[in-house]
């Protein structure tokens, strides 16, 4: 029983692979992930596509501990013990949830700079699911 079916996953591949956002032509707000309406003005049509830089800062985070991962992530958790998930505020404005990698769990903090990297997320029933994770940057980046 795959959690996200291939067609469901495939429908917003451009968001997931290319960090493609929708800029509202009515109010200018950058919406990511794209959805049926503008988050600021509720406009439902008229968007232009823009690609996000993938850079941002940690807005909040958690570390999913031993034994509590959803089933499709149990393999990852068994291998690493735990993994970090954060809400990242992208430099263009929108926020997105993703796993955080390359950060020392002890030093994870709100406000750290991160950058999107393309990664395999998990594998279920022979289907590989790709997407973005965010990697901690050194202070200057």
């Amino acid at each position, binding site marked *: 029983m795959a959690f996200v079916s291939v067609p469901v996953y495939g429908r917003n591949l451009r968001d997931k692979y290319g960090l493609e956002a929708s800029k509202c032509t009515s109010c200018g707000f950058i919406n990511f*992930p794209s959805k049926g309406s503008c*988050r600021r003005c509720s406009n439902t049509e008229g968007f232009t596509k823009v690609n996000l830089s993938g850079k941002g800062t940690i807005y909040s985070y958690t570390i*999913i501990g031993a034994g509590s991962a959803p089933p499709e992530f149990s393999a990852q958790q068994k291998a690493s013990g735990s993994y970090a998930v954060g809400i990242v505020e992208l430099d263009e404005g929108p926020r997105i949830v993703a796993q955080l990698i390359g950060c020392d*769990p002890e030093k994870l903090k709100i406000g750290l700079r991160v950058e999107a990297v393309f990664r395999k997320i998990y594998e279920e029933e022979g289907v590989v699911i790709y997407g973005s994770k965010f990697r901690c940057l050194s202070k200057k980046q």
Partner: protein
Amino acid sequence: MLTSYRAKGQVYHGCLWVLKRLAAIVGAGQTRFGDHPDLSVKELFAEAYREALGSVDKGLDAKKIKALYVGTLGVGGYQIGNVSAALADHVGLRDVAAFRVENACASSSFALLSAVQGILSSQYDVVLVAGVEKMRDMSSDRAKYWLGVSGDTEYERLAGMTFAGHYAIMATRYMHEHSVDKKYLSMIAVKNHYNGSLNPKAQFQKAISLEEALKAPSLAYPLNLYDACPTSDGASVLIVVKAELAKKFTDTPVYVTGFGAGSDTLALHDREDLTGLRATRMAADQAYQLARIKSGDIDFAEVHDCFTIAEIMAYEDLGFAKRGKGWLLADDGSTKLSGRIPVNPSGGLKAKGHPIGATGAAQTYEIFHQLRGTADNPSRQVKGAEMGLSHNVGGSGATATVFIYQR
């Protein structure tokens, strides 16, 4: 102006309309929450149903019940379709219109809301509200699989998020914005475990110390096992009647005098603020307005504490504390059984247990007994309570209800 308020059943007291009776609760039942390997969902429902019928002081002929509103998520898919008719059938309720209401962990409070609306529409006089869930039969992988279905599946789930993770992300942000130490979250667990230790229907009837609460294994940093509700089996049932008919069934009905509901984005990354729940504030505003009261009038409350941070946010969203100050109520004892405004005298989701669909109606079960002065254990009776509030949240705040009750 005054005449427009002169609805049937209202009481005029000096120059104040003190009660706006929207519907009355005249009976309530609840199974113990926890492990029930020997009972099916139908049998759990039947047990709570029999207790509810038996609790109607002057008796109720089941043939008078014209509608059944069932709240359930259907964790594990035990009966995906028509579960409400299946339950009615099991206890021989042949004359009801059966409805199923699903809003994740808030399912049965939304069922109660629909029931009150059904009564206010004048279509029904006597209805039944039920909440049921069977979670313990499943392997923990399957339970986690099903629980995740109530969140945002496209992005949060793809990031490996869990419900504990959602509330953990809110907790991290809350602690950051308000410079709050984790120990104040654990104090909620200590209080609710103590209350649960006095509740014969609670899953965990064991008090814990602050040290134990702080050193439990991490679930989703900064939350640990003792910050979380468990998975549970259970059922709860309420008998709701038209306010004007209440005294036919009991001399001590509990009236619903206000209610409200709100919703919000599923995904946390779509919310401007993560330190409170907008859906709760919407629901509370409506409920207070309808009951024409202020948060300060509430004597005690059952709030949605699926994770400890949720209770602290509820204090603020319900107006018991200012934004950013809810954690102070955990510290100064205001919300203990003996405090100024006891919160979760039942032990809350944390200690009483959280069979998803059964939780909302079980909060009302607790309030029904507290307001009538019939708490099963005198040591946990809230003294002199006249006005109670229940607060139930679906998922990580995508839906919420608030109800006000008066004697």
